[in-house]
């Protein structure tokens, strides 16, 4: 029995990665859920919106690096993030003006808007591949570790190391700031309140003089900011590859639905539920159990429930369970 080492191993391989991944998913799911709440359709192009915003940030990061501007220990990408957000905002506003507004005025069925978003997805995906190419791009710099495994071992004298990548810490900090700002905006400002009113009851909101186009515009702006932040953080933590963002669509939607579509709080909860289950189910528990089991009873196999390639299956199964037993999600979302 060695509870301390087991705990350290658990945090190193499960808790910390899952918290970072969960924050990234939560930021993505917030975007999906806001669009669903205000514009009332599932935006299939969200993954590629994230990729686009992150791409602008990557390009600006490269430029900043080339002229020698940096943040010292922090990644330069943080400086580039506002530019990425602005670029992404421009893109989604243009898309909304050229594509979505027409269908909004027609009062088209939500499913038509979903198909339209498929078209937008193709275009954004094509744009990103056209500009930056389909390959892995590295843009992370600054210190790699907040605490490296060796330092931790030396500090504590434990057998097990604990490494916290600076990108992981950064992800959590930035995500907390972003979420705090979002909730402050939604709950305290006039525009935020009108957004929530519009999401709750469109007709009533229109009657009380809320301008729907303004609400929609602010929604897109917020979504662009969230998507870019999520995209950049994910890219810093893992790596920037356009196709991966497209694949993130599934866990992001799963998070939003599990939490309850249309509920911002739910999106955050859903993100962490999905991230923690993905990591725990696909993690090989041999090490942790080895510390916990009494001497001589250590497991032989890897004690891995599912191979890591099945992580999609995990988000999907959770999605199904929630839909079957609690169709509106953990936090009461909309059921249109």
């Amino acid at each position, binding site marked *: 029995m060695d509870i301390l080492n087991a705990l350290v191993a658990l945090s190193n391989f499960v808790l910390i990665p899952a918290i970072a991944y969960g924050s990234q998913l939560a930021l993505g799911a917030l975007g999906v859920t806001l669009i669903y709440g205000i514009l009332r359709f599932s935006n299939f192009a969200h993954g590629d919106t994230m990729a686009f915003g992150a791409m602008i940030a990557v390009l600006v990061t490269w430029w900043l690096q080339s002229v020698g501007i940096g943040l010292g220990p922090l990644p330069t990408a943080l400086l580039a993030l506002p530019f990425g957000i602005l670029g992404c905002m421009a893109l989604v506003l243009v898309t909304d003006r050229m594509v979505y507004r027409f269908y909004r005025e027609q009062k088209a069925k939500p499913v038509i808007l979903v198909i*339209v978003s498929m078209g937008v997805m193709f*275009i954004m995906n*094509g744009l990103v591949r056209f500009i930056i*190419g389909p390959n892995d791009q590295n843009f992370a710099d600054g210190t790699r570790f907040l605490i490296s495994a060796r330092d931790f071992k030396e500090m504590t004298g434990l057998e097990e190391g604990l490494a916290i990548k600076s990108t992981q810490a950064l992800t959590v900090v930035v995500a907390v700031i972003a979420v705090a700002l979002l909730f402050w905006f939604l709950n305290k400002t006039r525009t935020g309140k009108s957004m929530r009113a519009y999401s709750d009851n469109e007709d009533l909101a229109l009657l009380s003089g809320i301008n729907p186009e303004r609400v929609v515009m602010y929604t897109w702006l917020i979504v662009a900011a969230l998507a870019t932040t999520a995209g950049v953080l994910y890219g810093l933590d893992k790596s920037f590859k356009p196709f991966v963002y497209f694949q993130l669509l599934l866990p992001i939607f799963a998070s939003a639905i599990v939490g309850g579509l249309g509920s911002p709080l739910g999106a955050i909860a859903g993100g962490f539920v999905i991230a923690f289950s993905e990591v725990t189910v696909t993690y090989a528990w041999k090490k942790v159990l080895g510390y916990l089991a009494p001497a001589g009873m250590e497991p032989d196999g890897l004690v891995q429930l599912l191979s890591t390639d099945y992580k999609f299956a995990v988000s999907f199964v959770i*999605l199904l369970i929630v*839909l*079957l037993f609690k169709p509106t999600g953990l936090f009461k979302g909309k059921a*249109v």
Partner: protein
Amino acid sequence: MTETVKNAALFLGVAALVVITGFMQSWNSAILIVNMGLISAIMAIGVNLQWGFAGLFNVGVMGFVALGGLAVVLVSEPLSPEAWSAGGWGIVLALLLGAATVFAAVMATRRMPRGRTRALTILTVLVAGFVIYRAVFDPNVMAVEAINPAAAGNIGGLGLPVLLAWPAGGLLAAGAAWLIGKTALGLRSDYLAIATLGIAEIIIAVMKNEDWLARGVKNVIGLPRPVPYEIDLQNDPGFVESAASLGLDPVTASTLYVKFGYSVLFMVVLLVLLWMAQMALKSPWGRMMRAIRDNEVAAEAMGKDVTRRHLQVFVLGSAVCGIAGAMMTTLDGQLTPGTYQPLRFTFLIWVMVIVGGSGNNFGAVLGAMLIWFLWVQVEPLGLWLMNLITIGLPEGSALKSHLIDSAAHMRLLTMGVILLLVLRFSPRGLIPEK
């Protein structure tokens, strides 16, 4: 009459595009476009059954296509008695145990009263079932995968003629669709979309990782073919003679002959399925489907079992996609799970159906041929366009080489633009539903 003329003109237009390709590039690539176009047309008929007839939003086409491909391996590969004696039956037993676990859990959910006992029973059944399943499954999989891993390591097939794999692909896809439909079809359209998207990814993940099944990412190559091999034709004096009398050299003639053979086979399947889809559309069943699509509540009030009909059409449409998937794998002669991409195998099929005209079978076929032609040809066209645009730029400039390299990614952009333009200006497609 004018409408028939217009539709015929549209089909002739696509045919003309293919003929132009034949003259401008080569007849080999023209026939290749036709072959994949025919397969895409079958997939489009499947999606049209689900979306056009019944309004089901299935974005898991890729999964069913891949299952069709898997069927080709399972049916046409030679028998592998070694693998079966080593662990094949054990795997089957494990899978049955797994199915029994799920069944027991579902039964417990249905039969037992709500409460803590039920939750505990379900949990116990699932956990115990999973442990037993893995205990039986893992050693058997190891045993099968250990047999000649460089060339085999899978359970092999049934050694049957490859043409039988096509209906088998349909059956496999139908079985999977039934399972999926049972769980997911009660959901609203958005949820169904996400659910099918996820299932397709899972099917691909299974095919990539379960090496005992079809070698996973190690791929199965050299699948049997329903048409003769080029090399045999070239060695056949009779064939060489008739090729010479047509003024063709034996190599070109043999490749054309083989591809044309596929075209004939695919055309037969397409015509049969198209005829069946047309009959279904005109039948009372088809009218009922459209009634359900247009107003579920009213149809339910008229006594139609909406969920059952949805399940039916979901299974049928997926089966058609499975058949197309089996045909595609046969045409390729290999199963490569790593190449299945949702953009290519799900969303592109959707573009075909929407552009062609959802709800109209001929529209779906036309859309499939046209979009497939564009998908193939946009790349060289884009390259040509980029060369034209960058003609003023100095040789060796970074922008020029970047633009020319990126031309390959123009096709996604083009497909998106086409989809959006059609949705905006002609939302009912090229050949609208009557």
